[in-house]
């Protein structure tokens, strides 16, 4: 198993922590969960069925940490029935006209995301969050060492919120971003503007390396400078491949997993993944024990 000793987990007030200048990042009691009716501020069409939804959901945004998610639902609807889990893609600092805002980056794949895509400014959406175990950031780190963010497709959604945390911890964030084609490399320029080095791969070769993001990862792990930690989010097949590469390489890695979810709060036991426990295995709930797991824990 991965040693957790050198990882500091931001379990509380990550948004506030981000606003602080110092390095006062110590674990504390779990953040409170809020269930509120959020107003849509903006729902930007990024093309290729991707949308960036900005919500006024201050208590959720203020309590959120990178890697956490929220359950989104349309109040009063009986079909689709279940809330949809979505990563908290970013929180925007308060300005004069708005308090802290919450951002969700999503891709239309079915009925729930179709409804999300149709939301217009002023409309409302029920938001339950923040939920799940955040990413953890290693500390201290060797000067100049890298943190790789490996994104497959819409998996990129989870990373914007993580970037400033990594930077504050003294890590150099690098985004390895794979997608089917150039059009699906959404928010790439945003990362670049934050000073993140972005390397891309597309299956159709329309941009960056032709092939899968795992090729980029292989290269990055092979070359200097030192990679302190790897974060990955994307389709299960990709996560499995990434996880195996990282266990082989010995670099510590955190995977963000997905699953159908009933409740999002640990009650239905629906969202499990097989994980290594003691000598055998256990089913861990992705919504509570995850969605972030050390790569070495997950038994596919």
């Amino acid at each position, binding site marked *: 198993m991965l040693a957790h000793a050198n990882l500091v987990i931001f379990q509380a007030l990550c948004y506030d922590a981000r606003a602080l200048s110092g390095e006062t990042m110590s674990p504390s009691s779990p953040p409170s*969960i809020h269930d509120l009716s959020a107003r849509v501020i903006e729902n930007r069409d990024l093309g290729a069925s991707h949308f960036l939804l900005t919500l006024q959901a201050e208590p959720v945004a203020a309590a959120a940490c990178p890697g956490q998610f929220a359950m989104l639902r349309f109040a009063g609807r009986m*079909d689709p*029935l*279940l809330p949809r889990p979505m990563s908290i893609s970013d929180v925007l600092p308060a300005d004069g006209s708005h308090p802290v805002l919450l951002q969700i980056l999503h891709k239309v794949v079915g009925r729930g995301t179709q409804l999300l895509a149709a939301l217009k400014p002023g409309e409302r959406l029920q938001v339950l969050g923040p939920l799940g175990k955040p990413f953890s950031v290693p500390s201290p780190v060797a000067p100049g060492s890298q943190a790789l963010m490996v994104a497959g497709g819409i998996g990129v959604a989870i990373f914007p919120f993580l970037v400033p945390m990594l930077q504050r911890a003294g890590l150099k964030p690098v985004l390895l971003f794979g997608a089917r084609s150039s059009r699906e490399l959404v928010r790439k320029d945003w990362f670049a503007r934050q000073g993140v080095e972005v390397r891309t791969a597309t299956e159709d070769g329309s941009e960056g390396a032709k092939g899968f993001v795992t090729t980029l990862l292989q290269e990055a792990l092979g070359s200097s400078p030192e990679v302190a930690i790897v974060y990955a989010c994307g389709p299960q097949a990709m996560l499995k491949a990434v996880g195996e590469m990282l266990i082989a390489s010995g670099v510590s890695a955190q995977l963000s997993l997905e699953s159908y979810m009933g409740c999002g*709060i*640990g*009650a*239905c036991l629906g969202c499990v993944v*097989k994980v290594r426990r003691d000598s055998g295995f256990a089913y861990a709930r992705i919504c509570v024990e995850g969605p972030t797991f050390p790569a070495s824990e997950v038994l596919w």
Partner: protein
Amino acid sequence: MKAAPRLEVQLGPLKLKNPIITASGTFGYGTEFLPFVDLSRLGGICVKGLSLSPRKGNAPPRTFETPAGMINAIGLANVGVEEFVRSKLPALRPYGTAIIANVFGETVEEYAEVARIASTGEGLAALEINISCPNTERGGMVFGCDPDGTRRVVSAVRKVTSLPLIVKLTPNVTDIVSIARVAVDAGADILSLVNTFLGIAVDVSRRRLVLANGVGGVSGPAIKPQALYLVHRVCRELQVPVIGMGGIMNVSDALEFMLVGARAIQIGTANFIDPASSVKILDGLLQALDHLGIEDVNEMVGALKTDGPSQDFST
């Protein structure tokens, strides 16, 4: 100022401060809901089904959405009855809410043993036995699908406990009344119904069943008309107190079950949609009774009017 409507209900030996109970398997061991629900307000909490040994449950996927419902095959994952008595029950005791242990086994002896151990738990209000469990000794036939299996389980459990005994019926039978009657004859104080309806989901693109277990149980609004029918039938045919459930999402649904005869109701899948559903329905019930000028919730129980057009139950 008017007094608030009275909500206390009596189900045979079991008294509840109000008729709202959270359903087994949908409310964890209760404490998962502390951020959303003041547990002390609930009429009762049914915990996740307990077995003799801890169970890991089925491989994922375990749940899937269906039209106005969901399907699950959790596989009765649970911490085991001993761990429940040791750590989960004490955490719930302070809230002063009726804690109901939902128990099951794969043999008659296992049912009895789980029930016996659960009954040692201090402060437990009642046992609910889930008879929708396959009998491993008899080729996997579900106990609650035949009168004999039901009789044997209920009698065995009745012998080992003096707690109020709730028998939870499966809806997947031709004639639920005959099973209900056997359960009562064998010692059930209270019946609860319905458990989930059998169903599957198919993934066309992968050409596979979605759930790793293949078959699962359907719950949520989709099953409400069927659940209401079964509760109504049992309430018409038997005198035993009944706890109704199946797709209750709001106070109107809850009142529908009470009108057809349920003295209390359980909230299941709704807890997943909005974790505060149980208390919201409780608040809604208070408001509704107040609005209707009803002083005691028991006035609603079985208050369906049956004069007028025929209500033939044969078709």
